[in-house]
């Protein structure tokens, strides 16, 4: 049997409301990372942003470029020198329908280059976003924090981290 190249590193399904989710002690043994999130927020009304922060770095080292559609118009915008990455623009978090994020983090364990990620954020009731982000650090990624603008993720929200091996 060939060696599996796509493995689940960690997964969590929230059993109660929680303000953030962290994947820590991420091994450097894979080439790329994939994170799949299906999340809800706890309170009505809502429209909360998810933020991603790496290795607990709170410096202004993150930038994001966004292509977004809300069902009636398309736009592109960007954020520079932020203290985290915005993980959505139109597809914000709500309580009444699942929002979905599929995140690809490239070459996360090298110690030479800044780290980039591309992802899709989706909410059928609000919009779809295609986004690219950069963390200006050459450190290997060992911790990923998914924080919220405010409030908590609802019970039942799921977060899975996969590793992809290039060999």
């Amino acid at each position, binding site marked *: 049997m060939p060696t599996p190249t796509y493995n689940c590193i960690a997964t969590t399904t929230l059993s109660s409301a929680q303000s953030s989710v962290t994947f820590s002690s991420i091994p450097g043994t894979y080439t790329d990372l994939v994170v799949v999130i299906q999340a809800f927020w706890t309170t009505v009304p809502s429209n909360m942003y998810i933020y991603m922060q790496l290795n607990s770095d709170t410096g202004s080292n993150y930038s994001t470029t966004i292509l977004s559609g809300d069902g009636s118009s398309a736009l592109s915008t960007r954020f520079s020198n932020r203290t985290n990455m915005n993980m959505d623009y139109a597809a914000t978090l709500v309580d009444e*329908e699942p929002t979905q994020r599929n995140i690809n983090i490239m070459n996360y364990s090298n110690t030479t280059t800044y780290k980039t990620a591309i992802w899709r954020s989706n909410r059928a009731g609000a919009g779809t976003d295609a986004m690219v982000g950069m963390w200006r650090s050459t450190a290997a990624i060992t911790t990923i924090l998914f924080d919220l603008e405010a409030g908590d993720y609802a019970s039942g929200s799921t977060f899975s981290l996969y590793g992809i091996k290039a060999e």
Partner: protein
Amino acid sequence: MALTYQAIATVTVGSGGAASMAFSSIPATYTDLLIKISARHTTSETSNDILATFNGSTSSFTARRLYGDGSSAASDTNARTIGLTVGASATASTFGNSEVYIPNYAGSNNKSYSADQLGETNATLAYAILNAGLRSDTSAITSISLAPASGNFVQYSTATLYGIKNTV
């Protein structure tokens, strides 16, 4: 080590064409589903949508799409769309390609999906579509049918269903 990414089934359209490509009796043993589609259809048009049916139902679908056609970008709310197929007027031997990710398909929440849909044909008009889809139904997905919005799929159209397991 556990296998987390496995092919469940593949459909390849034969010489007579087909009105749909379908997966039935989808086991609930995975966490997420991934569908990769390569499709062309019989109608004399450059391209059209592939429409989804989950568990035999065409109702309760909603969507937000972001798309470009080679000259401008726009957004719409075309429900039930899940893929793109190129038609008989498109460049010969070209097929539309789509990738659909459905998380927690066997869970008890409404079912969301993310789709990337492309119809590059080396022509002036070609669509690239990003799609946020939802079926507001809490049942586990046990069958998925894919059909062109007009005509039939032609021979060599394919759809492969993968299961992704979050077993650590």
